[in-house]
């Protein structure tokens, strides 16, 4: 009895608290509702587009003929430095003047951008332009499907620069076949091989052309004392910790053997990469490298932030990763030698290449071609006319002079021009608090046409190499698909494959068990994933 009474009392109190709660909850609902409102009205885009279409024409004309008051644009962007350009930086003022806008920046530390992004979505108070780091972020996809963001794919065709957007990247950055933001373009053909050129020369070898050459290079780097110090203290290639979908250099190497990029197409159907014989062949190659000590034996725990260290320290000679890393490696080696007073400033110690050839020709791993989207929420940009002005602004930012402005600042203040190259002033603090970070709002469509920093021959070569690599890239046919099975079980499925292949390489399991793990993958949801992917693939190709 007493117990019952006591519980009754507690229950009453709880109800009281709940009452309080629901009252407050209601208050919040009203508020988040205001965010929701915008989404709701966005829910019937039909009527909106029609009325807006005529507006768009008018708006476009008005833009051209008579001067309008500057449009206020707030932008939420990630910041990488500890300093950030403020709204009254002279560079921002200059951009304001040239683009007829009034910019307000909401800087968010990159390390926590995703949390802030989610909170901002929930708060309903969105800026005019918001940077979306991951187009497949479920919260963004949900918001898009609820009509929170403007579809810009069609409209981009009306603008001189945005219309030059790369169709592959447009597809990669799409949701359900449509584009809900202007992508920030990056080189597609970034991946390749970086190697110690001086070592190769010491050993009298030619740059490798075939997979066998590549293997021989690694072997020579280990066994023939490439640094000539008389000690057996070098090995071939540095690999780092593999996580889930990402497998360090292996993602690139497997393509040489003819394995597909994540998904292959066999008889018009999507097949997961690990079920192809070429993939297995590539894994056998990796195992051989591991067994012969040509790769670092602790690669399963090697921190990716330290990837460059062994090459810089002269312990290893090859990194298979983005080719622009060659320049950073080279710089670091120069710095180290300079400190020892042994630098040779005119020599490049590192060189790069797209890849080596197996039986399937030259094949390179593409990147997605973009680093996030600049999306435009409907709650902050209410009309199509406004949308047109925002897009016109983003279009304008692709003009070479605007790119230079956002990248380097104002000539004579933040940089000088020498032989057609930009040379930054040495005052990093001034740069960081007035310029750096502003390039986060550049879409680079079709590409970076602004001024460049003075290039070393290696950097110039790398840029050409990356452009050349575009014709050899092997796209992932499933890149734009958003799979519900994957969102639920993807992590687990990736782990099965990832764990098995690493255990295989280090010799904890044999080939039989590896194949068994691939079967487990099928049973644990892989079957459903293959089925769903094929449905999406069929629907997209209809």
């Amino acid at each position, binding site marked *: 009895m007493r117990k019952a009474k006591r519980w009754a009392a507690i229950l009453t109190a709880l109800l009281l608290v709940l009452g309080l709660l629901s009252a407050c909850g209601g208050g919040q609902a009203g508020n988040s509702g205001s965010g929701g409102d915008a989404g709701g009205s966005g829910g019937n885009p039909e009527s909106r587009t029609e009325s807006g279409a005529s507006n768009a024409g008018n708006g476009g004309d008005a833009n051209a003929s008579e001067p309008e008051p500057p449009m206020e644009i707030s932008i939420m962007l990630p910041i990488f430095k500890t300093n950030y350009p403020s709204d009254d930086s002279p560079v921002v003022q200059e951009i304001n003047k040239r683009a007829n806008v009034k910019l307000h920046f909401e800087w968010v530390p990159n390390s926590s951008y995703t949390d802030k992004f989610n909170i901002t979505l929930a708060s309903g108070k969105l800026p005019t332009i918001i940077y979306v780091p991951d187009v497949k972020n479920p*919260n963004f996809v949900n918001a898009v499907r609820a009509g929170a963001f403007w579809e810009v794919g069609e409209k981009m065709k009306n603008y001189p620069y945005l219309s030059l957007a790369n169709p592959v990247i447009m597809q990669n950055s799409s949701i359900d076949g449509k584009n809900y933001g202007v992508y920030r373009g990056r080189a597609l053909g970034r991946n390749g091989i970086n190697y110690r050129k001086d070592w190769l020369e010491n050993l009298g070898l030619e740059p490798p052309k075939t997979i066998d050459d590549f293997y021989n290079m690694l072997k020579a780097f280990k066994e023939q004392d490439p640094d000539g110090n008389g000690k057996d203290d070098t090995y071939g290639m540095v690999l780092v910790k593999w996580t889930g979908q990402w497998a360090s250099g292996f993602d690139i190497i497997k393509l040489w053997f003819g394995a597909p990029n994540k998904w292959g197409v066999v008889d018009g159907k999507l097949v997961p990469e690990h079920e192809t014989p070429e993939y297995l062949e590539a894994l056998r190659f990796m195992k051989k490298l591991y067994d012969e000590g040509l790769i670092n034996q602790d690669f399963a725990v090697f921190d990716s932030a330290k990837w460059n260290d062994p090459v810089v320290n002269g312990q290893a000679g090859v990194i298979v990763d983005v080719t622009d890393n060659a320049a950073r490696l080279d710089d670091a080696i120069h710095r180290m030698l300079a400190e020892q007073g042994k630098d040779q400033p005119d020599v490049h110690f590192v060189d790069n290449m797209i890849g080596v050839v197996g039986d399937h020709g030259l094949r390179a791993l593409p990147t997605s071609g973009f680093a996030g989207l600049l999306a435009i929420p409907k709650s902050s940009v209410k009309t199509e006319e406004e949308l047109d002005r925002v897009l016109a602004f983003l279009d304008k930012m692709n003009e070479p002079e605007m790119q230079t402005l956002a990248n380097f600042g104002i000539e004579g203040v933040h940089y000088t021009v020498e032989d057609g190259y930009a040379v930054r002033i040495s005052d990093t603090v001034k740069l960081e608090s007035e310029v750096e970070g502003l390039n986060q709002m550049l879409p680079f469509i079709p590409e970076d046409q602004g001024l460049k920093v003075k290039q070393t021959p290696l950097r110039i070569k790398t840029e050409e190499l990356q452009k050349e690599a575009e014709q050899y890239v092997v796209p992932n046919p499933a890149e734009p698909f958003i799979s519900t099975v994957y969102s639920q079980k993807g992590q687990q499925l990736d782990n099965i494959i990832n764990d098995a292949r690493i255990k295989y390489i280090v010799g904890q399991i044999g080939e039989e068990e590896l194949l068994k793990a691939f079967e487990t993958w099928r049973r644990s949801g892989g079957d459903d994933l293959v089925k769903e992917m094929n449905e999406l693939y069929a629907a997209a190709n209809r």
Partner: protein
Amino acid sequence: MKPTATSTAAAAGADATVAGPAAARMGGSTKWGRLWKNRWLYVLLAPGLLYFLIFKYVPMWGVLLAFQNFSPYHGFWKSEWVGFEHFRVFFTNPEFFMLLRNSLILSFYNLIFFFPAPIILALLLNEVRIALFKRTIQTLVYVPHFISMVIVASLTYVFLTTEGGIVNELLDHYFGFKISFLTDPAWFRPIIILQTIWKECGFGTIIFLAALASVDVEQYEAAIIDGANRWQQMWHITLPAIRSTIVILLILRMGDVLDNGFEQIYLMLNPLNREVAEVFDTYVYFMGITQGAFSYSTAVGLFKSVVGIILVTLANWTAKKFGQSGIY
């Protein structure tokens, strides 16, 4: 317990400050009289209570996200309700028992090996009579608490890797073999516990040192006169003085047996030790990346909390059974 007090518990708790004066005017029953007598205590209670209601209980509706497919953009009211779907997915996950086992074993190891460490260290410090030495050591052992886990993990790598790690170099030199500390599943738990002891042991002693500070010096003097040696002094005077603090910490620790500290595990986890290293915290993190963190992680959090509250209640009950004061 005290049945008479609890019958008014709810009213008093929720509306303490108002009840007092009102009761005084009524001037009636002993119950109200007692409330009035304690009016100042209720005044003291009020700010804290208010804090808990506003910042802890008002947002509590967040636990309902576990039953939704919450999307921040839609907000709470427009998100789709999915009932127990997230729990179903979680419990039917073939890895569920692996996660449960790993989380529990790690917590158990923590309880056995880490939990007593600060107590022992505090007792050893208590035996030090040179004040300067004691203070210096106290300050030094407190430092690791502030070293970020990222640094701890990278130094662990530097010491333990098979490729030129200091420990393996020594092993190789003297015994002619190496140990794959970082990838061998058998070494995962010991390394985690050692890292924890190194990092948090010194900081953990502070609370016990505070408890020891209130021990009456006269008691030791009396014991010495009775011929007690140092071991007996520690056993009969020092330990009892911190016993209730130990019990409370132990009970509270029960509340997060399924929390293993995400960052540390995440940094030390790799494909070769996943079978013992993956715990709820890391799993939820990875799921969050692909699935939209909120609803699923709230569901897992809710599960962890339910387990926690059951264990806390049990531990508290047990403590009371053994005559300790417990948390209530």
